[in-house]
């Protein structure tokens, strides 16, 4: 689903990623680990071009999204992202947080399709019988889009047991609640893949469990996930592949069993000795 080819990134001449190659298939759960400052976040943020790669390509469903000419917003809709610090929209309620992007983007698509239909129906008058362009049936209106998005949001909230928080503002929630809502906010876009950047690092220890539990559920449902994490337990038990990033390259990539029981790279051996 995502092919990363020779990905490079530098910030003001400082090289952070020096040629990363990796393929992420549908249903993969890839855990990314590595020392602090090794470029894990940078790698993850390049996957949806939150950072524009300096070189190489990111082929997402056949399109190189590292190319500055593609409409990146279109592709980001299909890649969820969950941040260390949750980043819920502070000026919106929980429900609005979840509904905002689906409603806004679907309404935008609707307007675009209506414009397109109008143009086509006018041009069709001048086109021959054979050249007529299809007028796409519009089956939804704004109200329906909103209603469906709300239903979906409430279903997702019920799933995590927070439906009574629908109208609360983020400032009133605990860290664990915020992160779980951030996760279903990206789920509401029906993404093909979700990128997690240390989703539990900013949480109090007693809240780590509930967030990991939700992530395990998603993994079990077959969601494709790339997870930068310090939770070695999660990497061992949930991931089907673990990647070690160090000095801006992938030093090792293996199944969790091999990765933890039989590490090859000397830096990885060091690293595991320290964290385990």
């Amino acid at each position, binding site marked *: 689903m995502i092919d990363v080819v020779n990905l490079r990134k530098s910030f003001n001449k400082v090289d952070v990623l020096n040629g990363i190659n990796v393929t992420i298939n549908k249903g993969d759960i890839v855990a990314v680990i590595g020392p602090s400052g090794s470029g894990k976040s940078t790698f993850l943020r390049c996957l949806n071009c939150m950072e524009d790669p300096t070189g190489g390509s990111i082929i997402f469903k056949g399109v190189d999204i590292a190319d500055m000419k593609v409409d990146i917003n279109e592709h980001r809709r299909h890649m969820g*992202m969950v941040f260390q610090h949750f980043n819920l929209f502070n000026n919106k309620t929980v429900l609005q947080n979840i509904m905002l992007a689906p409603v806004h983007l679907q309404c935008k698509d609707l307007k675009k399709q209506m414009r397109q239909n109008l143009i086509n129906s006018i041009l069709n008058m001048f086109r021959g019988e054979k050249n007529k362009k299809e007028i796409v049936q519009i089956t939804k209106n704004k109200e329906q889009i909103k209603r469906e998005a709300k239903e979906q949001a409430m279903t997702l909230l019920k799933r995590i047991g927070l439906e009574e928080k629908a109208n609360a503002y983020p400032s009133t929630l605990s860290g664990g609640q915020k992160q779980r809502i951030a996760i279903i906010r990206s789920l509401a876009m029906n993404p093909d893949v979700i990128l997690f950047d240390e989703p539990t690092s900013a949480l109090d220890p007693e809240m780590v469990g509930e967030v990991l539990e939700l992530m395990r559920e998603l993994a079990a449902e077959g969601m494709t996930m790339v997870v930068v994490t310090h939770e070695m337990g999660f990497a061992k038990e949930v991931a089907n592949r673990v990647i070690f990033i160090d000095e801006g390259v992938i030093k090792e990539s293996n199944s969790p069993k091999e990765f933890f029981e039989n590490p090859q790279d000397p830096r990885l051996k060091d690293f595991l000795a320290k964290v385990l």
Partner: protein
Amino acid sequence: MGNFEKKIETFITIFFEQGGSAKVLEGLENTLTIAITGLIIGILIGTVIATIRVLPKYKLLPRILNAICSFYVAMFRGTPMVVQLLVFYYVLFPIIGLKMTSVQVAIMVFGLNSGAYISEIMRGGIQSVDPGQMEAGRAVGLSFGTTMMKIVIPQAVKNILPTMGNEFIALIKETSVVSFVGVTDLYFAFNSIGSNSYEFMVPYLVMAAIYIVLVLIISLLIKLMERSLQKSDRRS
């Protein structure tokens, strides 16, 4: 003290019997129109400029726009309001041949001027919003503009509301220079009442009182607005 009572009497006579009150009302209306419309124009201009100035700058167009905006802000912050009024009224508009009433010119100049100040306030406000908010908006596929409008600017406005209130109060007070281009504002109205009787003490005292009352009312309104905007900070 008898002297003071007589002064009050003179003022009351002029105010109620010789058209003084009508002048003051006209002055009050102009003062408020110029300050409020100027503020609204200023907010629009200021928001647009502030957005341009926080745009990512690796493309050419944002850089050019940014340079134009910096120049604009420097011009309007670097010259006194009176000078701007005089230049627009007596130099710029006659040259381009635009016919505008002095009130319209005053509104324009106040809008342009407060736009420059508000853009700086707004830029500070935008920069005070956690960058994670913009990132989260972009990550779900919203554009820079949409995220700005729906997420960042509402939070920025909340942060800068007190400063904006001060800007509005400053604007109200600064309207006292519009009589330079012949607008009947509060100052002009009371000054002409004074000139009628060669007696300025009472008119100027009343004028000061009106300004104070205006400012107090505005301060109160801003407090109320702040309180209603703070609902997202409260526990529910």
